């Protein structure tokens, strides 16, 4: 066992997969320097041909990724900020997501779109989003959002090995997290939620960094409420089985997600709970998301993105107290 930082868990996963499969390469803006560290050290290990710095055009980078993937490679495309997926939208949503369908299953696009997501540093409206709902809404893409180093490594390895395009959003606020990582190789299959904490009074389904806030809230509510925290880990595929089993146990659920509320991740999960566990609900499914607002920068950010006190309040409300 060794302790790894969140970013280091990601770069280690990419390095292991690059070593394992020569078709795997990295392309992106400044991936050799890697300001967000997810590809740090890779160029020293694998050289500039497999760790390619690209011009500042997300559309071009994503286009090259899709082309290479169709030609048999397994590219990891670093978009830096997840927000920049909007620049690359045509390649990601129209091409990568749909080629397999358009070509009747004969041409796959196995690639990873890597982006650092979420708020916490007051970076403002164009650098703080976590565009999860948009990815979920577009059929053909998978979406992983790890909440800790262990999951980040296991999910990244699964993402690279997957034959579908996978968006991999890692959270800025998780960067300082450190966790013991096994020496032996492990892969976390996409589509397996994890019960991060078990409880009996209320289920919290939290995504990405919100998982950590939910766990902290659950700890503070100890003695007052028994809170179950579920991290879906991947939103596509979504492990509803684990969520529904928990709802059947606690009968109450709140979904906490950092993407903006309207037509969001929480809305989708809530509806699936309604469809699959309606008769087990003792209260309406509730949600806590970012406000329907551009993510404000600097000191105003905390009024848009859910903070710990609101998480605690939301859990208490969902539990009926």
């Amino acid at each position: 066992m060794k302790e790894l930082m969140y970013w280091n868990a990601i770069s280690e996963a990419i390095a292991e997969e690059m070593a394992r499969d020569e078709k795997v390469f990295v392309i992106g803006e400044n991936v050799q320097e890697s300001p967000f560290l997810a590809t740090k050290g890779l160029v020293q290990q694998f050289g500039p041909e497999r760790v390619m710095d690209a011009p500042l055009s997300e559309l071009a980078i994503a286009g090259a990724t899709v082309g290479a993937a169709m030609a048999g490679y397994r590219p990891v495309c670093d978009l830096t900020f997840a927000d920049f997926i909007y620049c690359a939208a045509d390649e990601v949503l129209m091409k990568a997501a749909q080629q397999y369908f358009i070509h009747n299953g004969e041409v796959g696009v196995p690639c990873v779109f890597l982006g650092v997501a979420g708020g916490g540093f007051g970076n403002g409206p164009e650098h703080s989003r976590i565009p999860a709902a948009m990815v979920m809404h577009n059929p053909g893409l998978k979406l992983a959002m790890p909440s800790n180093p262990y999951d980040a490594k296991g999910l990244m390895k699964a993402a690279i090995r997957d034959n579908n395009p996978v968006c991999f959003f890692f959270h800025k606020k998780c960067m300082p997290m450190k966790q013991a990582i096994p020496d032996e190789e492990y892969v976390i299959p996409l589509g397996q939620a994890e019960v991060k904490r078990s409880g009996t009074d209320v289920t919290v389904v939290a995504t990405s960094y919100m998982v950590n806030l939910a766990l902290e809230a659950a700890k503070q509510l100890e003695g007052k409420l028994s809170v179950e925290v579920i991290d879906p880990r991947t939103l596509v595929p979504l492990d509803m089985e684990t969520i529904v089993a928990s709802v059947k146990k606690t009968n109450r659920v709140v979904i906490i997600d950092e993407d903006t509320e309207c037509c969001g991740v929480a809305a989708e999960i809530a509806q699936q709970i309604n469809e699959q566990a309606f008769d087990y609900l003792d209260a309406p499914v509730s949600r806590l998301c970012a406000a329907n607002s551009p993510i404000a920068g600097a000191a105003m950010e905390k009024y848009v993105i859910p903070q710990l006190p609101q998480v605690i309040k939301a859990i208490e409300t969902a539990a009926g107290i």
Partner: protein
Amino acid sequence: MLTKLFIPKLGMTMEKATVAEWRYRQGDRVEKDAPVLVIDTEKVANEIEAPVAGKLVIVAAVGDEVPCGEVVGYIAETEEEYAQALKGGAGSASTAPAAAETGGGEPVPAAAPAASAAPCACAGERVKISPLARRMAAEQGIDPGSIAGSGPGGRIVRKDVEAATSRPVSAAVPAVAPVPVEGERQLRSQSPCKAAVPAFGKSAKAVLSLKGIRKVISEHMQHSHSVSAPVSVLSEVDMTQMIALRERLNEKLAPAGPGITYTDLFVMAAARALKRTPIMNSSLIGNEILLWDEVNIGFAVSTRMEDGNNALVVPVIHNADRLTLREISARRKDLMERARAGKLSVDETSGGTFTITNTGTLGPVWHVQTPVINQPEAAILGTASIVDRPAIVDGAIAIRPIMPVSITFDHRIMDGAPPGEFLGHLHEMLTDPQMMLV
């Protein structure tokens, strides 16, 4: 021709009825206009007459609760139709209307809306209950309407059902604390019994099933106490002037019409006092207190049921504040007679905004009562027997005809001041009747 018998909508708030009695058996020949069926609505029993002659097909069993508009049986004019209806009707009521479409029979009875197999859109409040609680209540066989909700907006949630299932349900045996559920079921499942039934270590000489009007009263009373915060205020009134007034009025009016009763005078005084203290004439519905514009005063009437037990009916004198004493009296008399005959329409027992219960007829024994609020009203006035009692008059002890009065009010809606104010107005009018004119 196959003619359907269905539950007619007899009042604005009527949603369903219980099949109380079939006067004929399956396959019996019934004549046109013969009473074939008795249904219990919330407060009154109604007879349903056969719209045509023919063979009776029974679909709904005695005790079934059926929404208005739904088919409970058919009258078949031919043997083929009888056989066909038995086949279709016995399975489920939902397949029956198709068979009845060809019938084109008259609606039943004449007062009911046009014949329609679809349940009518009945008015009335939906019970707020979580999906889980609804399922649990169904599994336990508990009527959600009898459970008090503790969730947001009065929603019934899991713990309310759990609380309801853990307490003894039987109203017949309230004193027994830990009830073995099995024993209770046994007792409840017995129909009127002949021999003594052993239950809870005692023997019951009769078992009266909780149904019809008794069930409704039982549910209403429990509902009232579970949703409101009742507080009773007790007082008394010197009735000297009221007695004199009533005697004078009856001397003049009695030869021409029915006599004025104390209840009439109380309705009149209360209606005027309610106008002056509007919060007493209100309802708490959801998160809003509605102050009613109309003053509709219900008065409790004790009726005797077929099984020999008394039941309570509360006919309503609508707009009592706008009626003269004579109008109130005539209306009260008519409603009371029809209440005792079981002939009240549902509308005549609904829409009340305040209730008076007069126990003065129980006999000249001094007593006070703490009546239960008739939900969703805000308060209820209880008047009791007028009995000679010692009273202080002009600094000396005198014998005066005294009537205890009590008001139970809902502390959720108001604090102690409005009932006190109301009582003050009432006291003023009853001790000095000319104040009713002011």
